């Protein structure tokens, strides 16, 4: 079998070689050289350009139609709604620019396709025109910058609300822990030298403030409607705490503490009933059925979004947004650090 394949390849090469010889020999007989651009070439390529543009735009709209509904659900946090609005405004603007400029590019390529009878117009510059397309983008960008920075300053401002929930997200290869302040409302100090099997996040065992801290893995709960202040640390390499549904992200850097704050607006239960989420989950479960996997329900997720090693792709933690009562009930069931550590 492989001998036959080999034989076929050899024959193909010989045939190709002979064909090339014929082409090479016939070169001398032709008046126009192969590489010269003829009117036919220009005509064909010009039309190909406009055809490409049409297909390109159809492809664009096809993708939007087919895939835009697989985007993340509408933001489930207060600032996320602002980000989504700003995102949409910017997206419409750049889509417009993308379509219009590409249109002119390919339209001109078609319209002014070369012809040996034509001559190009000598048109080296036009200061007014150039001024126009310097000023117009500048004005548009001014608006983009102003709105972007206004929101940025609000989002990045310190967490100030008195009833906020402070949670430390602790990253390591390849999982997350979340630490709650406990009753005293303070996170205990940490020291990486004290990390051990029973002290996985490196709590300072001498700091009283840490005794009532609550450490959870796999899943953490937050109450809806209260400001969540995330305090982030990393044990080994850079990770990034990415909470896409809340439009929240911040790197976790060893040797540093980083912050991000947000206010969740929809509980997990509410989100599961959201029409957009239902539609999305239907799509997900349809695909899962094809692969013989169990159907699933929506869950908020914390992902790692900075390359951190072999299992980077699997470093996740579930997030549950509860009503205030459910959250209180959940937190009451969690064990404090001190009794766990002293075991």
């Amino acid at each position, binding site marked *: 079998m492989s001998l036959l394949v080999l034989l076929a390849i050899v024959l193909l090469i010989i045939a190709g070689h002979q064909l090339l010889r014929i082409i090479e020999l016939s070169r001398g007989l032709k008046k126009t050289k192969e590489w010269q651009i003829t009117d036919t070439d220009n005509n064909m390529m010009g039309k190909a*350009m406009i055809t490409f543009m049409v297909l390109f735009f159809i492809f664009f709209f096809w993708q939007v139609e087919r895939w835009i509904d697989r985007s993340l659900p509408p933001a489930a946090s207060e600032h996320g709604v602002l980000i989504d609005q700003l995102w949409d405004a910017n997206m419409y603007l750049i889509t417009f620019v993308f379509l219009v400029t590409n249109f002119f590019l390919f339209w001109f390529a078609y319209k*002014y396709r070369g*012809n040996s009878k034509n*001559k190009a117009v*000598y048109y080296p510059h036009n200061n007014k025109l150039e001024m126009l397309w310097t000023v117009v*983008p500048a004005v548009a960008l001014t608006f983009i910058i102003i709105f972007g920075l206004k929101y940025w300053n609000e989002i990045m401002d310190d967490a100030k609300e008195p009833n906020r929930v402070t949670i430390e997200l602790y990253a390591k290869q390849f999982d997350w822990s979340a630490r709650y302040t406990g009753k005293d409302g303070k996170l205990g100090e940490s020291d990486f030298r004290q990390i051990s099997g029973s002290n996985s996040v490196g709590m300072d065992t001498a700091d009283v403030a840490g005794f009532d801290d609550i450490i959870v893995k796999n899943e953490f709960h937050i109450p809806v409607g209260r400001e969540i202040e995330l305090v982030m640390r990393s044990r080994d390499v850079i990770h990034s705490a990415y909470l896409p549904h809340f439009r929240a992200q911040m790197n976790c850097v060893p040797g540093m503490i980083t912050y991000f704050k947000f206010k969740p607006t929809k509980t997990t239960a509410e989100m599961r009933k959201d029409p957009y989420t239902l539609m999305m989950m239907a799509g997900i479960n349809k695909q899962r059925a094809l692969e013989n996997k169990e159907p699933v329900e929506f869950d908020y997720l914390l992902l790692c*979004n900075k*390359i951190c090693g072999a299992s980077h792709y699997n470093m996740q933690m579930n997030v549950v947004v509860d009503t205030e009562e459910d959250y209180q009930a959940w937190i009451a069931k969690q064990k404090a650090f001190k009794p766990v550590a002293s075991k």
Partner: protein
Amino acid sequence: MATPINTGLEKEHLVHHDHVHDHDDHEESFVSKYVFSMDHKMISRQFLITAVIMAVVAMTMSVIFRLQLAWPGEKFAFVNAILGDKWGKDGILDPNMYLALVTIHGTIMVFFVLTGGLSGTFSNLLIPYQVGARDMASGFLNMLSYWFFFVSSAIMLASCFIDDGPASAGWTIYPPLSALPEAIPGSKLGMTMWLVSMAIFIVSSLLGSLNYIITVINLRTKGMKMTRLPLSIWAFLITAILGVLSFPVLFSCALLLIFDRSFHTSFYLSDIYIGGRPLDNVGGSPVLFEHLFWFLGHPEVYIVLLPALGIASEVIATSSRKPIFGYRAMIGSILAIGFLSFIVWGHHMFMTGMNPFLGSVFVFTTLLIAIPSAVKAFNYITTMWKGNLQFTPAMLFAIGLVSSFITGGVTGIILADSTLDINVHDTYFVVAHFHIVMGLSAIFGMFAGVYHWFPKLFLRMMNKKLGYAHFWITITMAYGVFFPMHFLGLAGVPRRYYTNSNFPMFDNLVDINEIVTICAIIGALGQGIFLFNFFYSIFRGEKAPQNPWNANTLEWTTPMAHIHGNWPGELPTVHRWAYDYSKPGKEKDFVPQTVPLEEGEEDGGAH
């Protein structure tokens, strides 16, 4: 300006007299002609062919990891055949090797293909030719530049064959991941080799860039004022300046990482517990590394992009048979982009824990860069307006470049906005953005350059029809690969994930990944057309005439032979700018730069 005579070249001649017998002056030994050549034309070809080989390697890597992303866990004989049993057991890609492939793909494409390959080929070929010089200012340093590039390429490739695998911390090699061998196998010997290779690469880049700058400034022929330089030369000049200013910072960045890795310093490391023990390092900061890295990293984007834009300027003007629109504005844009590129690096770091106020400054500077970029795009389009477009394969790729520059550029406006960056930072939206704006534009520019200057590189013509086929397959498949990635980003898919199937959230994106991979495979196969056309035409292509595209620039006045010193006899004198295409009152639709101005005729570059 006195007639510039290259003294290095004269010396070289003297040396050759010693061991060359009865042949004429320019006869050289095989070694000095093809291996340790000091001639810019040969060095240019050496860069190009090395880059083509590196590009094939990097492209093959991308096909392997794309197979994994579309069909995770599926067995591919192809994967096993290339990676062997260790990294591709049963034809399934190993997760560590996945990261290694992503890393080396990025490194090779950014540095070896689009920096070394693109600048190395076209700055070398075109600077002496287009400014009217006999060769580079220093042929010897130029030769060293290539051979350092060769050695660094060889080390980078060799690192793929070692036991622990090559560097795998991403092409940005952020520590601590890249600093700690316990963190990932690729941070053992592979990372050391990566750093050594890059250090040598930087030497190569510096030697090349210094040469390019000096040649453009000092060795312009009589009459070649700065305002008569073709835009390609302006682009190469600014690119070289960016390289000289920013690569040393990458060098120091890499050096400190070498210290951290090998000599127990703590520039980038602090408070780390890994491999079951706390490390001694205290006081360093990974964010410092990010600052140093991106201080090169962002100018690097323009080091990649500007030469491609310069090439496009030449190709679009020549093939439109029209002067480039707004020559002065184009120079201004290149300068503005060059300057701004140094004060925007922080936009890669909005989410790193950098002070948010600093972030706002970078938002401002980054969005400013959209203005000169927009000017360039509009000027290209206006250059085509009312032109007489000649669709050479080079012109097709130049148009493709303008399209991808716009398509990828507009999403840059989103990513430069720190507020919007929060949710798409490090997702496929970013992957889509930079592959289109930087990857595609630069590679299209490189293809345009190869098709356009092939007659000067190899004295033969490439096949036009194969060029057409190559272009259409490339542009359709390239958009097919990178456009859908935006939608992965909108769904929140992080980059550098070995598979997206480990939790249900991304299960409905399977078809997007499949389309991307199928396009990647067809696109990669399509490059076979180019490779065949390229290597076949080097040996068997039709003999090229002196000025096949009826272009104005000086390289087309050189004889169709690779002679030392480029022009026999005196150097040409320049009388006008490079863009007198279809000038009214002229017999032909092009007026080479060597033609004197008629009485009362105005030079186009003068305003």
